[in-house]
């Protein structure tokens, strides 16, 4: 554990009188803190205070601003002392928060000790850098962003300060659009398929063949809902002889492909066409 001791050195002059400072924080409306000598932090108050600060830079900034210290000429002794008082308090109840605060404590002590050391003579002619410069830069950059955060937070936000309008759109948009397909698309696809599959040339696909196929479908569909149909029922003589021929071819093709069974008990008895399924399999 880091042993924290406040080094009381010959701090630069012009320390603000901390005794004049008003309370540090209000807890439940009560002023609970006064700086610095008799710093007393009630345990509950400490929690409130720590949650109010976003880290060591925030706390430092607060101490500096509270005591009207000049950022460009921070009295390190006083600042470090006050800061360490907080860290001491934190070590008791908020150890898990302390890492970053401890790091800052170490930095403050380092800066303070470097300020105590005699400055190396400026041989190169350049002004030696103030050990506080980097801290000041960080403090100012943080303060700048802290103010920016407050301003951004004050901008009205969707959902918090206003609501977006959204009127329902009537039903029609809900209808999903189906792809359009034209017969020509189908032909193209079919042609592509044939060439891709390098289907054998003797595979005869003709208009007649198609028409037989379409009747095969028609017959199967008709048979789907009925156990069997009479052969003659499948023909529509009024549609002409070619149609009847094609229907016959379709029935024969169905039989050939084992899709239907065609039965006749005796010569000139009715011919029945039925869908082949398990029960009629023979």
């Amino acid at each position, binding site marked *: 554990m880091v042993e924290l001791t406040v080094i009381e050195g010959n701090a630069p002059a012009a320390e603000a009188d901390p005794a004049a400072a008003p309370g540090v924080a209000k807890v439940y409306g009560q002023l609970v803190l006064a700086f610095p000598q008799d710093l007393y932090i009630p345990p509950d108050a400490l929690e409130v205070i720590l949650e109010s600060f976003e880290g060591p830079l925030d706390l430092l900034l607060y101490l500096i601003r509270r005591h009207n210290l000049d950022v460009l000429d921070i009295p390190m002794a006083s600042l470090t002392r006050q800061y360490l008082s907080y860290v001491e308090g934190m070590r008791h109840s908020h150890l898990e928060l302390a890492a970053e605060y401890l790091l800052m404590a170490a930095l403050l002590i380092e800066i303070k000790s470097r300020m105590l050391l005699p400055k190396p003579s400026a041989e190169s002619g350049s002004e030696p850098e103030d050990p506080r410069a980097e801290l000041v830069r960080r403090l100012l950059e943080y303060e700048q962003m802290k103010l920016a955060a407050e301003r951004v937070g004050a901008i009205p936000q969707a959902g918090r300060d206003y*609501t977006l309008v*959204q009127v329902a759109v009537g039903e029609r948009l809900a209808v999903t659009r189906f*792809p*359009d397909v034209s*017969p020509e698309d189908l*032909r*193209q696809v079919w042609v*592509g398929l044939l060439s891709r599959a390098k289907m054998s040339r003797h595979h005869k696909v003709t208009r007649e063949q198609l028409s037989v196929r379409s009747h095969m479908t028609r017959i199967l569909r008709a048979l789907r809902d009925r156990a069997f149909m009479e052969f003659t029922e499948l023909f529509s003589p009024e549609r002409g002889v070619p149609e009847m021929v094609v229907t016959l071819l379709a029935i024969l093709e169905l039989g050939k*492909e084992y899709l239907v069974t065609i039965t006749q008990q005796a010569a000139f008895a009715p011919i029945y066409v039925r869908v082949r399924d398990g029960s009629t399999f023979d």
Partner: protein
Amino acid sequence: MEAPSIDPRQAKLILETALLTSAEPLPLSQLKRLFDDELDADTLRRLLDDLRQEWDGRGVELVSVASGWRFQTRPQFQHVLDRLSPQRAPRYSRAVMETLAIIAYRQPVTRGDIEDIRGVTVSAPVLKALESRGWIEALGHREVPGRPTLFGTTQQFLDDLCLRSLEELPPLEDMDSLLERAAQSESASPAEQAQEEDGDAPAGVDVEVNSGAAGDGRSSC
């Protein structure tokens, strides 16, 4: 905290604002909460009626549906709004189109037949897409081991493609010229081809999606 009577103009502004921003229809019981329950249902209804009239002739109307009140677009404005989201007509994948072509030209066919021709397996979603479109249906089973389902095209398919019968499907020429053509046409898109040769293909099967004018989007035969 406030006067018991609420300015009707202000009340309508509040109702309008709440209804314009609510994703769901708002029932009276909820609308009441806007006024800390200080307006009774009758007053609210009267205000809503007023509000509805104020929106007469606009593109959006205030309606009362089963679950409450809401603003919604008037149907007359629908086709204008469609221009904002000109959903490019979706296209079926090659798998779907090839499967459809095989079923159309070779029906009745089983999944196995389709796979034999395409050389790849036919995934369930492909057949599902065509079935849910109402374009193919199961006709029965082929009595071979596994009793595979036989598929064919439906009347709906013919209707949607403006065909009176399967015979009106574009004829397939003899294989020699067909394979020749196939080689050439590989590059051209089906749509272009369709325009080139307006042979047997019934006119009016509009592949182009005319977003504005296409009224109800259905092409007539």
